[in-house]
């Protein structure tokens, strides 16, 4: 009998309360163990964890690698797997391995198999894949059924072929289909973070609006509290399902009506609505009331089902190989003449390299002068010290390092009118100051695709892990 079998043998109905423990908003960066342990004492029906998103940038989706270290990822996975198996309750992990493409899913599964062996855990796994076939994307593109989500060009066939990984964000449908297969643990590729937590209550018949609203808040663990933090949070859907309560499992964090309402702003362009594959959550009419000084009750969000199912698709492609140069300067004449120096160095580098390295780019990030700023740099005063982070891209790693190295030498010795620092314009914190930084990627798609058969898009497989059976492997 699996954890989901056991839950469904005597399922909570909409007349009972349903407790969901959100263990982590980004599994792999260190789940606070004490708050998780407190949450387990509350006898949750489900543990959910989000393991990624597009937020860390295109490298992870592009390369298929995880953003989190293997050691801490193993620690966190061990914590939640042991917790769920000991209580015999379902565990759902979404956006496996940072970006949720097949490579991330397989890396995560390999870690889970190792943990199961080491910890002697048995489990029935449901694995939900999220890679989207290129042929389908092309077909939908040609049918005019792929749309942009903002200031990014529409894709074309060549971009679809160039992308190293393309994933779709699954919603509740995929998780409900996986729960119907009665596993102990669900590991999903790229997924809406809400669906991890809302699929069980929706499947059990609780009203969709409050269930999705609760999911949207708890997917970030205790960030909705004051002070915000990464500790586990308990979301409890109250009998009838029209309201839910939020309580951080760290007693120092309070979910107050204001802190919970403010969470609707967090990383959202529109605080009034949340778009999901199968509908839109409207929170305009939500209300927030204090149950006590650290627990808040929420009600009133409305679910509007969509007439057309849509899935957000994300893709990344390789741009080139990156090398960086790290150096600083505190020379006032250098700082006064930065624009001129940059222009001069670019000219020198071009005259050296242009014969045999083509297609390279150089970007001077000059910290102290507004290098962090995407928009206006005009508020920055002249600094007394600056840092050069020079980003060089080329077609291969040797060329990228060559561009950084030549730039280094010409920046060090660049002559200009009024120069004092004839020993060298820059200080290196260490050598070599030019460093290969791996492959550079960019998001080539962040679009929405209309979908006719969503179940086909996110196939599920079942794997039985028998960690408790120790098989001798003598050679």
């Amino acid at each position, binding site marked *: 009998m699996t954890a989901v079998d056991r839950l469904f043998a005597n399922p909570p109905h909409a007349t009972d309360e349903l407790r969901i423990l959100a263990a982590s908003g980004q599994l792999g960066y260190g789940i606070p163990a004490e708050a998780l342990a407190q949450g387990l004492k509350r006898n949750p029906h489900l543990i959910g964890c989000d393991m990624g998103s597009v937020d860390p940038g295109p490298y992870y989706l592009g390369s298929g690698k995880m953003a989190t270290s293997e050691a801490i990822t193993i620690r966190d996975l061990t914590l939640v797997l042991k917790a769920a198996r000991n209580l015999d309750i379902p565990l759902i992990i979404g956006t496996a391995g940072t970006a949720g493409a097949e490579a991330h899913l397989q890396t995560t599964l390999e870690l889970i198999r190792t943990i199961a062996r080491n910890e002697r855990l048995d489990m029935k796994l449901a694995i939900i894949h999220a890679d989207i076939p290129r042929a389908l994307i092309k077909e939908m593109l040609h049918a005019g059924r792929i749309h942009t989500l903002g200031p990014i060009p529409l894709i074309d066939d060549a971009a679809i072929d160039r992308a190293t990984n393309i994933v779709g964000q699954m919603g509740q449908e995929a998780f409900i289909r996986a729960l119907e297969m009665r596993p102990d643990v669900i590991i999903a590729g790229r997924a809406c973070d809400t669906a991890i937590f809302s699929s069980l209550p929706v499947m059990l018949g609780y009203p969709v609006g409050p269930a999705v609203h609760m999911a949207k808040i708890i997917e970030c663990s205790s960030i909705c509290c004051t002070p915000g933090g990464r500790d586990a949070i308990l979301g409890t859907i109250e009998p009838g399902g029209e309201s839910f309560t939020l309580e951080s499992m760290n007693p120092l964090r309070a979910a107050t009506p204001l802190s919970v*309402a*403010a969470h609707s*702003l967090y990383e959202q362009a529109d605080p009034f609505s949340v778009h999901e594959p199968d509908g839109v959550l409207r929170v305009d009419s939500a209300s927030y009331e204090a149950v006590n000084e650290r627990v808040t009750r929420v009600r009133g969000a409305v679910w509007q089902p969509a007439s057309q199912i849509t899935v957000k698709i994300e893709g990344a492609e390789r741009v080139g190989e990156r090398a960086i140069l790290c150096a600083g300067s505190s020379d006032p004449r250098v700082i006064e003449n930065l624009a001129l120096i940059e222009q001069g160095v670019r000219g020198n580098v071009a005259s050296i390299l242009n014969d045999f390295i083509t297609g390279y780019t150089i970007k001077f990030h000059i910290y102290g002068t507004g290098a962090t*700023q995407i928009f206006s740099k005009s508020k920055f005063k002249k600094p007394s010290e600056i840092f050069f982070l020079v980003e060089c891209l080329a077609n291969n790693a040797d060329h990228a390092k060559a561009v950084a190295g030549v730039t280094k030498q010409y920046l060090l010795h660049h002559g200009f009118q009024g120069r004092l620092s004839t020993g060298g314009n820059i200080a290196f914190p260490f050598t070599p100051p030019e460093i290969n930084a791996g492959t550079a990627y960019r998001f080539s798609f962040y679009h929405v695709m209309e979908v006719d058969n969503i179940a086909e898009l996110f196939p599920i497989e079942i794997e039985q892990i028998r960690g408790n059976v120790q098989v001798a492997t003598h050679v």
Partner: protein
Amino acid sequence: MMKFIVRLIDVASVIRSKNAGPLQITLDILFPDATSYALACSSNALKASALAERYEVEPNSLSVIHYHPARAIKVVIDRPLVAGTPGDSDVYGAQQHHPLLDITL
């Protein structure tokens, strides 16, 4: 009649920025009480046109939303580069609130 100069940084409780997906940056300005929120909502310095000028962007790439449940003003700006594309300077978009810091209401 006395005139008071109220600096945004002195009355706001939070002034932050972050990506809202890889295509947009969102700025949230939160206020601790109804008085300061009302003052900010009525201030010309926090209107879309003034903010577009301050951020040196086209007015149609910036919008302002007043969100009463959290006493917050939200500003949403289109990114000129998709987050993390080479040439970007803030992959998470977490340091784009700087141009707001010297606003007077």
